[in-house]
């Protein structure tokens, strides 16, 4: 059976009009992320311009303190949460399948869901500006200022709920990219043959999975304190405002590397192409990226050098913060070495890369300065830090991003950029940026703190501020010119020839712009450079014809190859989900929940939450294959369909999700031990309010559930439904015991931080047991309908993982909340 272009277009069809809301293809979703990110960039930029207008002259009455405080909070929030990360995620989602030889990402519907969560969350946050209720405690919302005592009103709640909603998008994108890069590479693309950009995005996505939950936890705790009166950050009740800072920066520092690494990946992609040779130090670069990822989780306290933590801790974080310069330097010199040993040609993308180098290296140097504690004590919280962070963020993210957009313009629109207007746009932006921010280092050194809506004349800050404001206008002109250039060339530029830049990686084998399914047939690769564009560097050019995969689409399925995570050997054919209303509908229901929580309509919110759970369950139901496809015979020339085995993208996605939840749990444990040891007025009650037999019962029942599931991994021909229902029974009992414990325990959550933390941890376990139980019940029904069986076992390990995680948490809580404190003698 032959597959024609019409068949492919039908299988990969993107509807228009209303139905465009059902589109899930990574190309579209990635583009939507990027365009929405651009919109928020312009909004955030406008806010910055207003701020600079206010600061241009001393003692200005152009703007009140109220407005200014909202502006700087929203500028930071929008740029960090609604522009930087979504823009890069969008680029990653757009590029990854094209780089690794796949037709789509591993979880198309999850990606679409993430986009709608981002869109709705962003709109909720923006609505706070329209309502003149925007958050105004700074983008990092330090307590006690952001607590209900000192920030009454809904402003801070907009931030806490809106940003958490948007973060769902970040975490889902992280999960999706991680699993896609590990499991959907084309045949023969082992990890060591993977394009560097895929390595950078892999490390970034793992960092997202682990790095975002601490902030999610912090936001939940602060919202509980504000709306529910629970005590976490209030000193008098045994809490500590510094806990917020730790949780925030545990997220905040990895966040900036999450923003930097994909952009550095773009640099690593462009340099070899424009140097016309393979990159020097591929392995060193991979090692450097992984090292950066790890180290970045150990630096967060350098944002807190002035809070009065012990000097030994300060020394540790100071040294660690400087050491992170080493893997960054390795990357810079690998790029330099590649240019040196190659035959470089100049181009518009390379101009922007040079801009990146100048600005980012300078920002990195001031960063090393800031890591030195005595210097930090002078310039912390001044405009010096504002200057530093704009150098590293704009230099390290925006410049490579623009270079990458110009480079990939042929993929986006099939047209080429040119130097004419682009050159002007670059210089206008580069000069404007430096005029704005270079002098700002001195403004800070001369004593101007951050976040001040005005300043007195005669302190030496007048001229520098005026210069910065003028620079801001030049920068804006630059942004405008670059955007104009991109739009003009995107629509009317010269049509791109095949592989216009002579790139060596798979995305340049596609038609420009590529069709929705990317590859007509998936190739086999046997080197790092599937396209032999680098003369003299083509290793092991095989003379045997290399097989291509999945040519046939006449069965109507969207498919891509599933591979072994390390070797890239094809192990399954993944049946990908197609267009669907579920992502949009579920995201909408969560948006409704978010708004109801915001206005504190809790009974309605509970109903809305129940509705969301029902909708999400329905989505998970319809995500499985239809029976027709499920039992269809596999093509003998292609790897088996993934639902015939136990290893599936869904299992990897579930594991990635559990890792994120694990990071949340570890943050909770951190909070518990931190408050216990450091909070000034922490108190243990006379006796533990927990009843260990109840909790042990819960743990044992969950363990039973997980154990029975293990045996089901070789599913019986008969009696599968009954076994799953048995597990559900054990789970229901565990849930009841846990609910009883929560109701009966004498927890004074509004009076003592100790009790508040216990409650949060128990509710967390309750949520996980509940989710596992729900999934088990659904699975029992599916088994009864024949959608889960010995022939279709792939959903079984997924639910087993949910129970195994619940087991882990239950025993951990017994240990940490009861056994350990008892042995320490505090009860």
């Amino acid at each position: 059976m032959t597959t024609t272009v019409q068949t492919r277009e039908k299988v990969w069809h993107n509807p228009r009009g209303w139905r465009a809301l059902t589109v899930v293809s990574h190309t579209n979703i990635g583009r939507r992320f990027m365009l929405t990110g651009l919109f928020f960039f312009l909004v955030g930029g406008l806010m910055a311009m207003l701020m600079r207008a206010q600061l241009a002259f001393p003692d200005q009455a152009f703007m009140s303190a109220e407005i200014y405080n909202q502006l700087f909070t929203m500028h930071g929030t929008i740029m960090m949460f609604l522009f930087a990360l979504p823009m890069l995620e969008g680029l990653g989602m757009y590029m990854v399948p094209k780089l690794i030889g796949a037709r789509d990402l591993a979880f198309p519907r999850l990606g679409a869901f993430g986009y709608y969560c981002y869109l709705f969350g962003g709109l909720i946050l923006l609505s706070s500006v329209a309502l003149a209720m925007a958050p105004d405690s700074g983008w990092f919302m330090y307590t006690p200022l952001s607590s209900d005592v000192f920030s009454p009103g809904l402003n801070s709640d907009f931030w806490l709920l809106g940003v958490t909603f948007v973060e769902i998008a970040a975490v889902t994108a992280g999960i999706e990219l991680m699993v896609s890069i590990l499991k959907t590479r084309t045949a023969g693309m082992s990890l060591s043959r993977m394009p560097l950009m895929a390595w950078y995005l892999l490390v970034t996505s793992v960092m997202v999975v682990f790095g975002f939950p601490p902030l999610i936890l912090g936001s939940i705790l602060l919202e509980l304190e504000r709306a529910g009166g629970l005590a976490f950050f209030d000193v008098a009740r045994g809490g500590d405002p510094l806990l917020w800072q730790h949780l925030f920066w545990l997220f905040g520092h990895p966040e900036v590397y999450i923003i930097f690494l994909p952009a550095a990946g773009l640099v690593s992609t462009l340099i070899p192409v424009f140097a016309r040779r393979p990159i020097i130090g591929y392995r060193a670069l991979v090692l450097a990226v992984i090292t950066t990822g790890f180290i970045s989780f150990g630096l967060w306290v350098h944002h807190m050098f002035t809070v009065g933590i012990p000097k030994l801790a300060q020394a540790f974080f100071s040294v660690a913060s400087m050491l992170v310069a080493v893997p960054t330097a390795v990357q810079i010199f690998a790029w330099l070495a590649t240019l040196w040993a190659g035959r470089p040609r100049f181009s518009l993308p390379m101009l922007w890369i040079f801009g990146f180098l100048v600005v980012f290296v300078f920002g990195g140097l001031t960063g090393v300065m800031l890591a030195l504690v005595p210097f930090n004590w002078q310039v912390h919280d001044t405009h010096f830090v504002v200057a530093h962070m704009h150098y590293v963020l704009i230099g390290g993210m925006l410049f490579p991003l623009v270079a990458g957009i110009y480079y990939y313009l042929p993929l986006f629109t099939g047209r080429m950029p040119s130097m004419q207007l682009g050159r002007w746009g670059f210089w206008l932006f580069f000069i404007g940026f430096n005029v704005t921010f270079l002098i700002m280092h001195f403004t800070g050194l001369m004593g101007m703190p951050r976040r001040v809506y005005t300043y007195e004349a005669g302190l030496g800050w007048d001229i520098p501020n005026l210069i910065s404001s003028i620079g801001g206008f030049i920068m804006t002109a630059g942004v405008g010119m670059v955007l104009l250039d991109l739009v003009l060339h995107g629509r009317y530029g010269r049509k791109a020839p095949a592989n216009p830049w002579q790139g060596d990686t798979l995305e340049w084998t596609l038609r420009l712009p590529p069709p929705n399914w990317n590859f007509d047939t998936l190739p086999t690769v046997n080197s790092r450079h599937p396209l032999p564009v680098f003369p003299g560097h083509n290793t092991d050019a095989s003379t045997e014809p290399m097989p291509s995969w999945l040519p046939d689409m006449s069965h109507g399925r969207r498919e891509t190859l599933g591979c072994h995570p390390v070797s890239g050997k094809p192990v399954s054919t993944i049946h990908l989900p197609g267009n669907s209303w579920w992502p949009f509908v579920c995201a909408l229901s969560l948006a409704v929940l978010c708004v109801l929580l915001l206005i504190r309509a809790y009974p309605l919110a509970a109903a809305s939450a129940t509705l969301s759970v029902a909708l999400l369950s329905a989505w998970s139901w319809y995500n499985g294959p239809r029976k027709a496809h499920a039992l269809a015979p596999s093509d003998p020339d292609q790897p088996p369909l993934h639902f015939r085995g136990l290893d599936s993208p869904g299992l990897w996605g579930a594991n990635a999700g559990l890792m994120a939840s694990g990071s949340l749990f570890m943050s909770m444990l951190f909070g518990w031990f931190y408050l216990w040891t450091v909070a000034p007025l922490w108190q243990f009650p006379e006796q533990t309010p927990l009843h260990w037999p109840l909790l042990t019962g819960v743990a044992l029942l969950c363990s039973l559930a997980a154990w029975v599931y293990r045996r089901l991994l070789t599913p019986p021909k008969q009696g599968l439904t009954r076994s799953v229902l048995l597990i559900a029974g054990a789970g229901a009992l565990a849930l009841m015991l846990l609910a009883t414990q929560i109701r009966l325990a004498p927890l004074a959550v509004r009076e003592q931080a100790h009790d508040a933390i216990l409650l949060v941890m128990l509710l967390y376990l309750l949520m996980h047991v509940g989710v596992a139980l729900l999934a088990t019940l659904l699975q029992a029904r599916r088994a009864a309908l024949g959608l889960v069986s010995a022939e279709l076992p792939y959903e079984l390990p997924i639910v087993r993982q949910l129970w195994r995680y619940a087991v882990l948490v239950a025993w951990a809580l017994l240990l940490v909340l009861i056994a350990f404190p008892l042995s320490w003698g505090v009860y």
Partner: protein
Amino acid sequence: MPKWASSAVLCLPWLLSGCGGDQSALAPAGRAAHEVALLWWWMLGVSTIVLIAVCGLWLWAQFRKPVDTDPDTERRIARRWLIGGGLVLPLVTIVVLLAFGIPIGHRMLPLPLDEAPMKIEVTGHQWWWEVHYPASGITLEDRIVMPAGRPVDFHLESADVIHSFWVPRLGGKIDMIPGRTNVLRLQADAPGRFRGQCAEFCGLRHAHMTLTVDALAEDDWQAWLAERAQAGQADEAGASP
């Protein structure tokens, strides 16, 4: 020359005027501030050299006539750049930086002295400073008077949200966090008037939470104490029925 350098040149006349200002960390008037200012100028100098060198190398690599390399030369180039530039350069720089920076930081700490320094308690409020002298019972608002030429320990607390106590010409800052007391040691070299400002965003009037610090010569300081004590007694005498 790189465009950023042209921008710097434009600022030179104003820069050369000394980066002064009553609140400038670059116009140090205390030992801690002096050391940090010196550290800054050295770090700026070395950073400028590193930046120019890296950018210069990049431009040279980008625009010079390419030279054909064989695999052995390539490996040598790779090793030179990756190890020399990627490992040795940053590690050496870090070691040197720490070698100078750690002792400076250490000297700024309020470690025990033979003679205990004078103690001043400052409590941050939204949006003013409450200054209290425990030895003499004096209380001031938004103003500190202190003796010059000897170390003074500031015990810092907060009555509401997090503030930060900062007098740049004398030394670094430290946060005032509810529930804790942080200690900052400052010493003014010579008598003078300095300006301080809250450096942790604390709400609506954060920008106006400023502080005036008067350092007095030892005689003037004793005179001031005596005058305040008399005024205090007069108040008490006047207040008693």
